């Protein structure tokens, strides 16, 4: 009955255009007010200095601060008000819950935002679709998945133009969906105009993962209150591995169109070198992140999002593992099979990008940019000066 009343009230509020904060948002507002009266954690990251520029925390502030939080966990272990204290302050968890909500709320098209909720299923389905698609295509075209060695000629299995016509639109869709989502987020937090300095600082913060250094350079907690740089390093391997793979594809595209040099490329060629290096990074990085994720302190973050975290990690691992396997086996009769599996994994990775963990990088970058803009403006709250 009470649930019904809540639903009815929410429905009428919605009809009247009143923004009803979620319980996750209300919790962030609650804990931020406690933190704002304490401020011991100011040195750890950007969240707390950003907090001190506010006395009230509206929905937009909550969205901004939640995405500014890197879930490093340092403030939880340092907190004199953390559970079992009756104030039960758990910033990493409160922020993570709102973060998960913002990914879903700001997703484009909004109907697909629900894909975040059962993200393990989303990832599994995308993978099944990707694999089925390429395996079926390979079978349909060749009648068998095994063939006489083709000296690594992928295009003998899937013609270049066919791949472009499949991955091109998907890539474009990913860019548009994430772009529209983050644009809506950006408008919501009314961030203002970024200066070149702010952009440069944000780029540094993102590329160096500044806020996983614990504020003192020794890293952040994982399973207990001890600091470790492992998360930052494995994340770097993942990110730069991904970028190298991306660069490999980019270089190959230039080779193809600008110079007419068609794949397969030699092992010592730039695309293969970049891809191999990236693939190794993308193998070690996500493996490490998965290891840390499994061992992570149960109080850090939102347990409900673990399937999303691990689903994304699994797809990254699958992409790199199948890519490296393909490279190793490209001269064998199993190339078609290896290629279809690799392309299926890549397709699943791309399809789920706007509806999975990948989005965290985009939203966090936007929040960091807002911080870089905001911190250069005079503090609207005069407390610090008196």
């Amino acid at each position: 009955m009470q649930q019904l009343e809540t639903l009815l009230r929410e429905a009428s509020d919605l009809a009247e255009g009143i923004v009803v904060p979620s319980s996750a948002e209300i919790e962030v507002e609650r804990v931020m007010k406690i933190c704002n009266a304490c401020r011991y954690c100011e040195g750890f990251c950007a969240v707390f200095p950003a907090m001190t520029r506010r006395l009230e925390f509206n929905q937009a502030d909550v969205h901004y601060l939640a995405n500014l939080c890197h879930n490093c966990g340092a403030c939880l272990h340092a907190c004199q008000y953390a559970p079992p204290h009756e104030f039960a302050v758990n910033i990493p968890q409160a922020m993570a819950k709102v973060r998960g909500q913002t990914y879903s709320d700001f997703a484009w098209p909004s109907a697909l935002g629900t894909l975040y909720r059962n993200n393990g299923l989303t990832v599994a389905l995308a993978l099944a679709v990707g694999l089925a698609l390429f395996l079926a295509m390979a079978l349909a075209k060749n009648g068998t998945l095994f063939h006489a060695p083709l000296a690594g000629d992928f295009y003998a299995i899937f013609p270049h133009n066919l791949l472009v016509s499949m991955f091109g639109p998907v890539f474009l869709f990913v860019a548009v969906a994430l772009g529209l989502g983050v644009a809506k987020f950006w408008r919501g937090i009314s961030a203002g105009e970024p200066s070149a300095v702010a952009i440069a600082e944000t780029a540094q913060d993102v590329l160096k993962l500044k806020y996983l250094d614990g504020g003192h350079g020794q890293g952040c907690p994982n399973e207990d209150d001890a600091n470790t740089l492992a998360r930052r390093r494995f994340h770097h391997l993942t990110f730069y591995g991904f970028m190298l793979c991306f660069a490999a594809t980019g270089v190959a595209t230039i080779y193809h169109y600008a110079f007419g040099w068609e794949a397969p490329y030699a092992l010592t060629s730039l695309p293969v070198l970049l891809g191999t290096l990236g693939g190794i990074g993308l193998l070690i990085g996500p493996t490490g992140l998965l290891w840390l994720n499994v061992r992570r302190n149960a109080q850090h973050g939102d347990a409900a999002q673990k399937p999303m975290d691990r689903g994304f990690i699994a797809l990254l691992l699958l992409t790199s593992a199948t890519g490296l396997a393909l490279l190793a086996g490209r001269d064998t009769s199993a190339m078609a099979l290896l290629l279809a599996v690799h392309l299926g994994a890549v397709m699943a990775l791309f399809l789920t990008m706007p509806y999975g963990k990948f989005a965290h990088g985009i939203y966090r970058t936007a929040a960091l940019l807002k911080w870089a803009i905001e911190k250069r403006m005079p503090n609207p709250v005069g407390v610090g000066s008196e």
Partner: protein
Amino acid sequence: MKQTSLGTPDVLVIGGGNAALCAALTAREAGASVLLLEAAPREWRGGNSSHTRNLRCMHDAPQDVLTDAYPEEEFWQDLKKVTGGRTNERLARLAIRESSRCRDWMRKHGVHFQPSLSGTLHLSRTNAFFMGGGKALVNAYYRSAEALGVRIRYEAPVDRLEVVDGEFRAAWIGQERIAARSCVLASGGFESNREWLREAWGQNADGEWPADNFAIRGTRFNRGVLLKAMMEAGADTIGDPSQSHCVAVDARAPLYDGGICTRIDCVSLGIVVNKHAQRFYDEGEDFWPKRYAIWGRLVAQQAGQVGYSVIDAKAIGRFMPPVFPGAKADTLEGLAHQLGLDALAFVRTVREYNAACRVGTFDHTVLDDCHTDGVTPAKTHWALPLDTPPYYGYALKPGITFTYLGLKVDERAAAYFADEPSGNLFVAGEMMAGNVLGQGYTAGVGMTIGTVFGRIAGTSAAAAAKNEGVEHAAA
């Protein structure tokens, strides 16, 4: 009777906060085997240290997070002033000098420092802030202690000591006897012992027991058990037995561990009335950081041990945001109603105050010329009429930070019995802070005393254990 396993430790440290950890780490570094007994369970370990945030440090030139200089003499004069001379100059100067030398050691054990927090600019010269606050420091020390092989037991509340002729023999937890060659006591004051607090504060003229209405800002585990045990064993004491550091906190503060965030920092920006809606002290006497510690006592002296800090919209944003939202109303009558005050009396008090305000140039950063004329008590600075709604009100009650009663020690942190130093029993932290801080307080000095005397006690205890070992071998 159960003897503790793993053999008799050289040094037994009783307590689990900053001073205890400093003693344990130092004794271990000196080669002693160390057992540390923390009364609290692991999640509540660290005592009041978990609520601290900085260390007052002497320094003769700018250092990493400390600006300018804070020479020994200035530190000493500050200490002399806040204690009203109730301090032992020899021990105070020892603490001051050592405060300039301990930070590298702290860093070695995992403590990180950061510049002063927002809203604490006035401390940027004198106090080194712990990144993440005192609980981060406590965590770092426990990690370091574990790594160095200090044995740690939680939920190990020692209830009595075996002391013979001023020499420590063993500590008892119920039926368990824990012997050691030497011992460091660092188990805090008695502020969470309600009965003792009641006795210390007594009964007032209205028949109230004021201490019954106090919040304890820190740990619930500082029950003064060993302080009392030592007094009964004939140890010499120091510091005012009836006094405690007492701050005005939000009346909704939890009974224990409210820590820093329950402080109400808008007193100097408005007025404070008691439950009869009458003002009772000059709210603008001095800068708030210099006055916040007298307001606990002032409120404790009011009927019902309650006060109400009232401000108007002009004050918003000028003080540290309070942890709980205040009562808020567009009229003074409405505010009085929300605070449960007599509206007529409250409005009269505010009108009299408003009419008495002589507004000059308001400046909260200096002792400005806005004052009252013709009301008692006067408000001597920052007196602006309460005339801009909405009005806000916060109920205040006294919050106890720590007690001053302690055990007398010397430069080696040795406990004293009938003016004679013990050979193997040492004291550190709040339990002996009264030697340096007989009354009053200045930010970060508790951690200075705890760190310096913790390390001295650890060194002394390790040396005493070694001597005893030699004597035993010779015997």
